[in-house]
């Protein structure tokens, strides 16, 4: 993680109120992994308001640049929407825990009797099928994950099947569609008003995906080969009610699920304890709360105390 003044390369409004910003920062471009974020100061150093940095997930990286995509929803993002090529933004990053990469090699069920929680999670990453569930402006880190999976695994014999489920209020709020189409096997869209894709919730599509997957008998197309167990893994990012529903659905289907959380982050580096989320089981290392900035933003959905969030 480093701090730098990143030159603005490009700033374009990709959807109403949504800006895709390209910034020059070689160390972020080189090191950022899907799920990580940068902490951006939305003002000049000479002023003091808005005071704090804002966190944005990395959407894409290139040789020396990286992209973020945000919706204007407050004073900080309003400032950032007006920057032009040639301006510079004070950034800190890359920060946070990234998504765990799925492994396409599937060696069948691990020996359940001796599985520890850690090894169970490790083996849950052995999944030939990845389902991405994104809501609204939560989709950028998932788009990066799709690209990362394709880049890391695209040329291997056992590739990873990626299904992207995108939800938004309406057509005007759908973002990163091309990014997903380029890197996913299937893309499905749901909008609240039915103006793009089907009318409904992205979580309904997830429920269908997981139920269909379970129902396939050994000889149906798409079913796992004999001796091979099809395992789904879900990655989700979006509004809290969506994440809560995704967590519930995945738990019901016994499917591992990683989520990326969002919270106000005064410091972004783990010193203030401001951005915490309650965990289901207090443990020695973390206590009752984990910091979204350094113990996340990516976490296993089952770690979160959803009743108290």
């Amino acid at each position: 993680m480093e701090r730098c003044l990143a030159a603005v390369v490009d700033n374009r409004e990709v959807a109403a109120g949504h800006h895709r910003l390209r910034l020059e920062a070689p160390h972020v471009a080189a090191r950022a992994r899907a799920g990580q974020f940068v902490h951006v100061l939305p003002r000049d150093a000479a002023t003091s308001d808005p005071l704090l940095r804002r966190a944005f997930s990395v959407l894409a990286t290139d040789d020396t640049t990286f992209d973020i995509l945000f919706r204007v929803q407050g004073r900080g993002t309003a400032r950032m929407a007006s920057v032009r090529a040639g301006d510079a933004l004070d950034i800190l990053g890359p920060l946070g825990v990234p998504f765990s990469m799925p492994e396409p090699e599937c060696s069948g069920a691990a020996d359940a009797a001796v599985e520890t929680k850690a090894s169970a999670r490790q083996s849950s990453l052995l999944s030939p099928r990845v389902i991405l569930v994104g809501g609204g402006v939560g989709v950028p880190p998932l788009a990066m994950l799709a690209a990362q999976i394709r880049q890391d695994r695209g040329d291997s014999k056992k590739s990873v099947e990626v299904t992207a489920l995108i939800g938004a209020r309406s057509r005007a709020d759908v973002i990163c569609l091309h990014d997903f189409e380029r890197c996913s096997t299937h893309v499905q869209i749901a909008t609240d008003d039915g103006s793009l894709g089907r009318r409904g919730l992205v979580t309904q599509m997830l429920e269908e995906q997981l139920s269909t997957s379970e129902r396939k008998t050994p000889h149906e197309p798409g079913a796992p080969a004999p001796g091979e167990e099809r395992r789904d893994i879900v990655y989700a990012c979006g509004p809290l009610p969506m994440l809560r529903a995704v967590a519930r659905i995945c738990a019901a289907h016994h499917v591992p699920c990683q989520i990326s959380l969002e919270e106000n982050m005064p410091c972004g580096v783990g010193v203030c304890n401001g951005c915490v989320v309650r965990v289901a089981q207090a443990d020695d290392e973390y206590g009752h709360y984990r910091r979204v900035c350094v113990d996340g933003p990516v976490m296993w959905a089952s770690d979160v105390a959803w009743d108290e969030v």
Partner: protein
Amino acid sequence: MAYLQTQLGPLTLRNPVLTASGTFGYGQELAPLVDLEQLGALVCKTVTRHPRAGNAPPRTCETASGMLNAIGLQNVGVERFIAEKLPFLRGFDVPLIVNVAGESVEDFAFLARALSDCPGIAALELNISCPNVAHGLDFATDPIVTEEVVSHARAATHLPIFAKLSPNVSDITVIARAAEAGGAHALSLVNTFVGMAIDVRTRRPRLSNISGGLSGPAIKPLALRAVYRCASSVQIPIIGIGGIMNANDALEFFIAGATAVQVGTATFVQPHAALDVIQGIDDYLEANGMTDLQTLVGSLQT
């Protein structure tokens, strides 16, 4: 930078800039980004007798040129602090000041005793002024209790004792004098101001705790005035805290009467803020042909 040397009671610091409790953790997170050994001292996150989980989120909220926090003194407790956090900090050549908070006078004495026996601690800062916990942890609104807490802590340890005062009082000089009478070697002021913010859409407080402590540039004028008034009320040195974002801010506090300063919220914005302040003070002295920072302290002309 020899002329930045600062004396706080029995404690000698290489420069007058300390980190404020709660803004630097226990050093581990920022060590990769910030050279800890350049700091005058590191005041770590509050340590309590028993572990504390902290308040439910949301714990923070940005306000105009500031922020509210209601963290709730989340910490691992003194036992784990000594076993797990202290060893890391001992590896650095920077004075460590441990901020402690108790639910009773006896708690403060207990903490003072427990930390006395630990090598690597330069001083204790008594957090008698945290506004974010229920049931009377805010000792610093009562001068009698203030004097009692300080004197019990003094009796329990050989370590220098600094008392951190609350600004949420009618007359902070009364509390300052009480802390001095109790034997404090220096005073840290101020802690955060109690405040709140409301979400109009939901008609709910933005903080789960309803109210929280305000910090940042917005409180500088208030903190500065508190320092100015206390400087003429007590003999012991004052550590000025409140909205210091840069060296110029720090200089205002010295002129008002502070011997040293703490940098807090600024660190959230710029991890190396404290180091920038140190450099800026040094640049100022050099530019003005001054060889001793102490000539600036209390030099306000009225």
